[in-house]
């Protein structure tokens, strides 16, 4: 956690473009939140069922720990939409991003419950994470 899922138009992204986007997800999320990069997951699937609305190239849904500010969430959404649009060479308006909060204590990763953002437990957790926070 966080877990970002990008649903993209079929054949929108090559493997190299998916890799670039995954790297951008790490950069944006960690830059905005200060979270350790080793916990950032990005899943990219193609819209084989045609569920994307007309004119939409991709949607990104992020599940993130509750406690981030509205400004942080807005910045994440704006930067991820822009990043994917740039990589895919599509209009920025054709990519939308939303985030969903999940309480930290409802997720276990690295064998431990995730700490609440900004808590004292988070400081210890970040110091002990594989990439040292």
């Amino acid at each position, binding site marked *: 956690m966080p877990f970002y899922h990008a649903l993209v138009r079929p054949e929108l992204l090559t493997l190299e473009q*998916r*890799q670039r986007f995954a790297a951008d*997800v790490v950069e944006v999320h960690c830059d905005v939140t200060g979270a350790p990069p080793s916990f*950032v997951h990005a899943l*990219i699937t193609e819209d084989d069922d045609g569920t994307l609305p007309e004119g939409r190239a991709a949607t990104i849904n992020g599940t993130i720990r509750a406690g981030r500010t509205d400004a942080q969430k807005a910045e994440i959404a704006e930067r991820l939409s822009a990043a994917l649009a740039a990589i895919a060479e599509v209009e920025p308006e054709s990519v939308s991003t939303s985030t969903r909060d999940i309480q930290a*204590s409802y997720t*276990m990763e*690295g064998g431990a419950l995730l700490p609440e953002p900004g808590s004292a437990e988070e400081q210890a957790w970040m110091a002990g994470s594989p990439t040292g926070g």
Partner: protein
Amino acid sequence: MSQFRCFIQAGSNADARGDELERRLHDHHAGHYPGEEATVTWVAIPQGHMFTEGRQSTSSVVACFLDHTTTLDAREAYMRGVCDIWTEVTECTDHEVVVSVTETVSANQE
């Protein structure tokens, strides 16, 4: 009915040992909620579609949808059990399994 939704990497140990994982998940759920069954669904993610820290992921994500409300202690024990199953059966590290709980009922429905 409660449900496990498991996202795994295609070709991984989790993919190869799905039958054992599924049996263990059923036993685990029944251990916490006697007499109850749970469904298990699988999504095998092809290589090159999931990344952790920007690199090809080796992680599994196990989303548990419980028809129960939970206390912190009960939830932690439940998720730890799933984590232990995964590390034992697939030989992954505990950094390669993400477990989440979503309560699909509210307290006044239970």
